[in-house]
């Protein structure tokens, strides 16, 4: 691994990655760079190719084209080296549900090379830390969704990996369990592990990831920090609330003239929302409204949410896609 001066060490470098299944192009030229020691989020709707990216990087699938390197090792030629440094928690429990939590962790510990006593001690330490002590001897299939996800992550860090793949780590979890998983991920990154996670949840990527790649139909359609992504679709939205709802059509007309973008009435009875390209425009608008005698009770210029980013980039809402894919 040679580093150019000033460039952070990369855990993952992917260039023009392609993967076809029969006639389906799951990955159609994906480029990614994941700096070591960060959380990298791969965001996209179902079927976008997120899981395929992870499975290629975790040496579970061979790419059809392009290159993918993990810590400088090629995923095909250096798979054995890569496996020494990674762990993966799949979308569906990657533990043996027929065995107890303790037995699962002990099994992984033994395979990683711990002695019986060491494996047992490590399993106990993890069960305690993950709040699963009381469920240690129960079969994993009796665990709740949140507990299953935690034992799964625990199994991935029996030996702390340099790079941890988490495929939709919080899908289907209740908010409390989701927060617990988030805490664990943050803690792992604090101690130097690189985390590459996929998610369908825009707020999850926003909360956890240092950098985000938005994936759609096998391609990365945008990449950057969540701030950069938000900025790329314009400053954001201007929300205006009027004192007199009766002046809504007049205000809408003014907004439309000045901004040249669609005005959204759906907000609520006295509110209006419109996309603005620059902050200065928002100030001018307020001035115009004032001159025209439209009294404004409240206004704000908000950065766009990742959902809006997604909508702007793909022309579809992320949530819509999700429902379609599931239904």
């Amino acid at each position: 691994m040679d580093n150019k001066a000033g460039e952070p060490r990369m855990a993952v470098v992917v260039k023009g990655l392609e993967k076809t299944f029969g006639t389906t192009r799951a990955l159609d030229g994906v480029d990614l760079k994941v700096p070591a020691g960060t959380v990298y989020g791969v965001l996209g709707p179902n079927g976008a190719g997120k899981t395929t990216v992870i499975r290629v990087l975790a040496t579970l699938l061979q790419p059809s084209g392009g290159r993918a390197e993990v810590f400088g090792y090629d995923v095909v030629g250096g798979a054995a080296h890569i496996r020494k440094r990674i762990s993966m928690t799949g979308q569906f429990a990657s533990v043996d549900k027929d065995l107890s939590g303790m037995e699962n962790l002990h099994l992984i510990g033994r395979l990683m090379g711990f002695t019986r006593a060491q494996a047992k001690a490590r399993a106990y330490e993890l069960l305690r830390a993950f709040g699963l002590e009381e469920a240690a001897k129960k079969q994993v299939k009796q665990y709740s969704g949140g507990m299953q996800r935690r034992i799964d992550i625990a199994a991935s860090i029996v030996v702390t990996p340099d790079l941890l793949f988490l495929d939709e780590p919080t899908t289907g979890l209740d908010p409390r369990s989701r927060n617990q998983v988030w805490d664990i991920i943050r803690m792992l990154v604090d101690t130097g592990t690189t985390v590459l996670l996929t998610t369908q949840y825009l707020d999850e990527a926003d909360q956890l990831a240092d950098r985000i790649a938005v994936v759609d139909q096998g391609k990365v359609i945008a990449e950057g920090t969540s701030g950069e992504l938000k900025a790329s679709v314009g400053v954001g939205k201007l929300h205006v609330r009027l004192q007199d709802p009766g002046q809504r059509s007049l205000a809408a007309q003014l907004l439309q003239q000045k901004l040249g973008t669609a005005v959204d009435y759906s907000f609520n009875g006295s509110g209006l929302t419109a996309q603005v390209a620059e902050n200065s425009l928002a100030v001018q608008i307020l001035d115009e409204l004032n001159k025209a005698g439209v009294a404004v009770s409240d206004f704000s210029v908000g950065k766009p949410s990742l959902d809006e980013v997604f909508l702007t980039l793909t022309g579809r809402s992320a949530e819509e896609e999700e429902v379609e894919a599931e239904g």
Partner: protein
Amino acid sequence: MNKKQVPFNQQDALRAAVSTSERPKNAGPVSASLTFGGRMLLKIKYVPEQLFDITAFPIIFLLMFTYLFGGALAGSTEAYLQFVLPGVLVLTVVSITMYTGIELNNDITKGIFDRFRTLPVWRPSVLVGALLVDLVRYSIASAIMLTLGFILGFRPEGGLVGVLLGVGILLVFAFSISWIWTTLGLVMRSEKSLMGASMMVLFPLTFISNVFVDPDTMPSWLQPIVENNPVSFLVVAVRGFMGGDPAFAEVGWVFVGSFLLVLVFAPLTMYLYYKK
């Protein structure tokens, strides 16, 4: 589950647990295979019913065939027992060879398969471990049947050595044929379809054979089919050892057949396993 009852700081425990950087030398092939085998044995603890195949079935089969058919087929149950026991032993053990394939199929449909394949261990160890446990399974089934047989009056001329050699060659063949099921286990979509496919192969293979009667008593068109059935070769080989009159030609063919099965299906299994 309730964090508040735990008399220590969850966050500190979590931090301590995730910041361990201990990195042992990964388990070698033998140790990994044995660990995976241990996993299969652990599963028995939770579902002891799965032992019916290797405990109750041999007993039922042996009693049923000896007492139902013995008088009619060989004049006396005792005489028939000497003939049928090696055959029923083969039938029982060969019929349970698909278990590893089924376990493998089960693992694939769940996420654990992915975890195993991303571990830094010798990749075939998952399969080798499971197949080792199978050998234990076959040995238990054989021991149960032979013990019951002895109680019922089975007195093999070949003595203990003959019996052990007979069981030995049976285990070699059973191990070899298991690879067919591991291959199918990786191809088939569900446990049920694999069960169906294996029954379709195993049922005729074990029954259209010389397990129950001498092929000489069969219609002439059926005889060549029965005599060329690999299971018939195996039964002759096992009978030979146990009867104190080893059938070396058949033993040779069983080894050749077993070797060919492993030669074709072991690499095929591994290929599919890596590609999956």
